[in-house]
């Protein structure tokens, strides 16, 4: 069976946490439980005007890639609602090829 995953272009993740709340609402997760959590890395100065300052969504064991949604032909809710449009859903093999296209990407396969 084809494995599906999510490709994160974390160069543009603004840290808005819409993915976290979309997931909590879709899966009726109580406060404190997440299918995806955004981590903040920085800010700290690397050199001159070059600063480390990024956000990276991390997927937990609660993530089922929105199986019910994708069966109905919809996108996972985090991908649908991502404000910075940095999440892509698809077959891992296809997404893996896109890793070549630019740096600051992360491919995840939660299940």
């Amino acid at each position, binding site marked *: 069976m084809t494995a599906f995953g999510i490709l994160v272009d974390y160069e*543009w993740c*603004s840290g*808005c946490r819409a993915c976290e709340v979309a997931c909590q609402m879709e899966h009726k997760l109580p406060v404190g439980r997440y299918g995806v959590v955004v981590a903040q890395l*920085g*800010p700290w100065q690397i050199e001159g*005007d070059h*600063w480390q300052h990024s956000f990276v969504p991390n997927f937990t064991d609660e993530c089922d890639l929105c199986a019910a949604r994708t069966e109905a032909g919809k996108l996972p809710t985090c991908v649908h609602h991502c404000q910075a*449009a940095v999440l892509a859903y698809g077959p891992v093999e296809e997404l893996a090829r896109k890793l070549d296209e630019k740096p600051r990407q992360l491919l995840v396969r939660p299940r």
Partner: protein
Amino acid sequence: MEDRGYTFVEHEKPLRYEEGDLTVTRGSAWTGPGCHLGCGVLMYTDEDGRLVKVEGDRENPFNQGRLCARCLALPEVVNHENRLTHPMKRAREMRGKDAWERISWDEAFDLIADTFLALRDQYGPECVTFWQGTGRDIAPWITRLAWSYGSPNYTVALSGTACYAPRIAGCRVSSGAFWLGDYSQQFADRYDNPEWNVPGMILIWGNNPVVSNSDGLYGHWVTDCMKRGSKIIVVDPKRTWLASKSEVFLQLRPGTDAALAMGMLNVMIEEGIYDKDFVDCWCYGFDELAERVSAFTPEKVESITWVPADKIRAAARAFAAADGAIVQWGVAVDMTKETLPAGQAISALFEITGNVDVPGGMIAPPSILYYAAGWGRELIPEEIRQQKKIGNDVYPLFKAAMGPASTDETINTLETGKPYKLRAGWLQTTNPLACTGPDPKRTLAALDTLEFIVVVDLFMTPTAMALADVLLPACTFPERDGIRVGDGVQRGESINKVTTIGECKSDMEINLEMGKRFNADAWPWDTVEDMFTFILKDTGMTFPELQENAPAYLPFTYKKHEKGLIRADGKPGFETGTGRIELWSTLYSMVGLDPLPYFEEPMPGPISTPDAYETYPLVLTTGARQLGLFHSEHRQVPHLRAMHPDPVIEMNPATAARYGLEDGDWAWVENERGRAKRRVRTTNALDPRVCSTDHAWWRPEAPAALEDGLFDLWNMNINQLITWTPGKSGLGSNYKTLLCRVYKVREGE
């Protein structure tokens, strides 16, 4: 439906459809709760009509399916167990106590009408003051209510009308139009529209769009454009995430915006890198502007703003060189005391570089309907407005050009009874004690002088608990119908009712029914739907037709000033006295204000009040926006409160260490006026001399009664450090530039 040249979006599904066990209804979002952007939403209701889920509408070009946390968690707000669900009254002597009596809507309307009409007969209609909060769907209806009652004293509940109004007023004064960044939002096909160009540069000034989503801007359009090649410059006291992605980051001292803009103008003019043709053809007063900014050399501006001179030069050059440049300015400009000259200087950046009504620059947005500043102005005689509106005698600009009364002068009037005594208040969708009002104890005492107060809101708030004699429950947007023409670039959207909570009524239903009792001729409609259809008549659509077909996009054209499409008389140019963009303002000159931009040291401040700076050695800026929270809303909504559970003061780790504080500590933030509690968060994003905090805090879980702390308001509200002090024009105030000291909260405090 008549064809008025609007562009519509193809809908795959009807307005309402079934999906599994649920009914889905398309619509637009408009506070309350949440912000006033108007994202396209799909609202899911179950068989009992309960709102169970909200998704972004991918067909809507505005947000293209995306949503922020606040709309995603909407069902938790709408269905919250602490919503107000029926009208209540309380005896005046019981204000501040949890001593409410449930009443029917008829009793509530009759009680209010009897009281207001008796006051009008005895003292004249100006004795009632009408207050609104931020841009909840309210301005057309509350202005019509106030004006049809006969009172010119409608106002917004913050000092200096310091939110959006100064930027709009400043733009209109200098150019006869309002200017917005062109992110292709005026086109249904958005970034694919062939007329549009990707902005070369976006100058983000005093806002953090990816967090705050303000003033018609969907914040992530900025990142959409950056992915397509736009560069950015960021002006902010804090190194935001966007600042770290900028070409130039100008980390200024709060409140020195005017000096920074004048420094950039100085560079552009000295180096001759402005658009000389545009200035020659379309601007007035350039030589005077050049002379005014000539003293603002980058080195001098560095000493004022703490921004290095070479960065000021680099920013000016990069902005001037860009093919299409946007000034993306925010509320920080309004919340500077001398906001008009600051805004004037910042506007001049895009004006002298010719980024006026060009693709990827600044655009004058088309309007479907212009009623956001008030509907029914003709209902009140002009001489009453001129003579009786509070603040007109103090601020000539308010008399000449502003719809609302001055809120600062309204506070003075409440206290002094001069020029006449105010008797009653109508506070709709506003929470001045927790959110917008400086000096909340003074605000409370001033409003408490009113004999009779009506509050309309979604939840019990500190304002309602402390002051309301009658409290009316309002609908959230999924509980009501409405028109959403939008701020920023207007487009026809409708708000569509999908659910019912208790006996709540929409703001416009409340205003319609109340208005009929005040002045039936001014409110001839049987239902709000009839009222919406009446308003929409110029669009060729009825309200149901708008619901089916929204969103509707207006015809749009660039360079309207060249085509005679801006001025009412159809001539080329701008709608000003001189027909040009006035860098030297004839209207400011006429009302006794400086016609050119100027900088005034923020007061208090390290330079203006050095003695105070010794006692209060940190510059404090307030109002940092937080994900999940909209002003004083959302504190009782579990998933949103969890994103930001406590009010925070951000400071450099070195600053924290100097005052014996660690990340996560509770600290008092204090000046000579008062103090508020904040959780310390250390960050390298701030200069060690500056700290930043969020606003509008109260704790709905804390005891409610005034004698028990009014929801912990007196520990939480940072506005206790702020005064009612507007700028010279009456616009602008000092929410963003304070001095403070910080120290650890002791056990038991």
